[in-house]
């Protein structure tokens, strides 16, 4: 634990409009072994502002992982994904689509927009918590990602 505390925490951007889901996700992340700092934005517009560090998000860090819900007010997750992939500064950010939808169409569309993976949230919290742990383990510890000059 002491080792981990010296390491800079991983920055996670959670894009989710449902407070319940936000809290459950935070709870699930609490149990994780990785030190994470979770930033939450509640709609797509704010997500883009955060990533581009505009306005109130000017001093926010570049996230190491984005957890993106698809059904969002104003600008939905599909549009956010498209903007990220079209922006040269953001295109290599890992994006995990984390949504309630099991629709084939949503799945196909997300992969076409180069989501790194698509995960349907299960109803069972135990299963959900397990999934969150696996995501963190995989994206924040296992994989090597290109380093970006900050």
């Amino acid at each position, binding site marked *: 634990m002491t080792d981990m505390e010296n390491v800079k925490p991983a920055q996670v951007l959670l894009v989710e409009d*449902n407070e*319940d*889901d936000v809290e*459950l996700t935070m*709870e699930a992340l609490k149990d994780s072994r990785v030190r994470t700092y979770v930033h939450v934005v509640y709609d797509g517009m704010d997500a883009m502002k955060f990533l581009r560090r505009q306005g109130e998000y000017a001093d926010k860090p570049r996230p190491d992982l984005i957890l993106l819900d698809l*059904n969002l007010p104003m600008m939905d997750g599909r549009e956010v994904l498209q903007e990220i992939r079209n922006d040269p500064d953001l295109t290599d950010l890992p994006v995990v689509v984390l949504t*309630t*939808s*099991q*629709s*084939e169409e949503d799945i196909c569309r997300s992969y076409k927009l180069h989501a790194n993976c698509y995960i349907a*949230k*299960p*109803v*069972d*919290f*135990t299963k*959900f918590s397990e999934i969150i742990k696996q995501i963190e383990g995989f994206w924040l510890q296992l994989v090597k990602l290109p380093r970006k000059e900050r």
Partner: protein
Amino acid sequence: MQISKMVKVFFVFWLVIPVLVVVPARAADQPSGAGRIIKSASELDYPPFALVRSDGTADGFSVDLLKEVVRTMGMPLDMTTGPWHDIKQQLADGRLDVLPFVSYSENRDRLFDFSASYMRLHGTVFVREDETGITSEADLQDKAVIVMKGDNAHEYALQNRLAGTLILTDTYEDALMQLSSGKHDAVLMLQLVGFQLLKKLGITNVVSVKSVRETNLKPIPGPLSGYEQKFCFAVQEGDKELLAKLNEGLAIVIASGMYNTLYDKWFGPILPGPKVSWQQVARYLLAVLVPLVLIIAGLGIWFLKKEVARKTRHLQQEIQERKQAEMTLQKSETKFRTLFDVAAIPMCYVSDEGIMVNCNTKFTQTFGYTTADIPTLDAWWQTAYPDPAYRQQVIDTWDAAVKKVQGTQDSIDPIEYLVTCKNRDTRRVIISGTAFPEYFLATFVDITDLKNTEEQLESTLADLERSNAELQQFAYVASHDLQEPLRAAVGFLQLLQSRYRDHLDEKGTHYIERAVNAGHRMQGLINDLLTLSRVNAQNLVPKETDMTRIVAEVVRDLQPVIVEKQAAVNYSELPVLVVDNNQVFSLLQNLVTNALKYNTSRHPAVEIGCQEDGDVYRFFVKDNGIGISPRFHDRIFMIFQRLHTRREYSGTGIGLALCRKIVERHNGRIWVVSQKGQGSVFYFTLPKTKELIK
């Protein structure tokens, strides 16, 4: 013609009297005279009286006449030719019996005996055509007259002191040419010679003063005035017998008409045509025309009567036919009018002048207008289309449609218009027309009700489409939005369970478990709804699909259950069909799952097969399971309908509803044949698509 006939009669009379006197005296000599060969000879060149043919024989008017006279008297003739002075000497010497052509003179009468003169050539005065002052010899007293030097005419002129001045020429050709060219006043010469010369020289402006009255050369009785020559046959002096025969023969030849024939033959081409007087012409015309006119008139009247009778019959027949036709027309007109009036569609005719001729009952029923309301096409435009802008548009459209079919037999295109009725209602009407000569028939199809229904249908369809879309949207949204609170409820309950374990007693933990289970069931229902809505919403993706392979996959997926239940699933060879293979997979998966699930046999047995049935394949999934009472056979295909408690059999009741949906989307049918406790056979049909079957 009559003139020459009269002449001939007189001549014969004059000639025959002496002959009749002589004939009895000579009758005794007749036999000896008849056997004698008459020797004669003719001059070489004195046309047309005497000439020599190319074969050397004699020819000419006088020769022909002599031959005819001698032949008539039954005497043989031996005719030779020779120069005039020669043959004249031979006659004087007695070597010849007769010469055919000798001009009479007192000197010659002493040497020969002369027959009656058969021709006289008289002299005449030739003048220019435009000469008016000279009509006879008497008029020559103060004129310049041309004659040939030493000619008889010369002598005659001198003897009678005819001319004011005598101009002498060497030939008559010269004389006539001088006269023709305008020199001097007249030429005195033999008429016949003059005619021949004028013809030969082609002179047309010179005429004989006598030719105005008469152009006959033939002998005429009575004293001859003026200068003339007589031509006769000449015999030896004293040969009275031959002379008598010649005179007799001559009389006969003249009387028989032979003389005329010969005369016409030789002189016809030379002499100018006889001039006929107006009186004679008139007399002729009267004689010929009057009877002719009478005959024609008679014939005409007869023919006319006949023609009138024929025409009358024809007209009567025509009138009859017309009456018949009129009656037929009237009948057909009545028939047409009735048809027009009772026709189920509004119609009217309009003349080419734009007069509304008639409109039928249905027209008045539909629009309220009678012919009195809209007497003209113009009135129709004004009344039926009160809005000026729309009216103009209608008129333009109609005119264009009419123009398009002008001069053809085609109908005027049906076009939709908004017609204002008498009661101010507007009706949607399709107007078309047929042009006939002089008028056109307009037909109206009132589509107001049809259009309203159509609009209603369209609006209903749109509503349905919208509601269907909403329903699909609803199913999708429900699956998401229902799941979120569900997940939150379940999630927090589970958090409560794990984080506050120590604060909960057994009962509390049990309640939480019950709540979480309920949440899971709810999620199952939501997912089933979603699946069902997807079958509806998604487009079918028909592909050539091997049904045997689909069943094999289903069996493979269910292997754990099959093993667990010690079941046997058998299937025969199945056809290849064009279907959505994902959906057909779900269908078979559900049916086979049910067959295994609702089965309490120790060894569940499932059989899958297929039979051809007309244009469909009928599949079956047969089990030895618990069976279904027939009264539930319909209910089981309805959504969320269950026949068992959850404790007996888990499930939401979506499976067969989904199966039915899939089969129906493939234009098939699904049903069950079963009795409680006797197993079930589920049947479904899928259409054949022959061209794609292997």
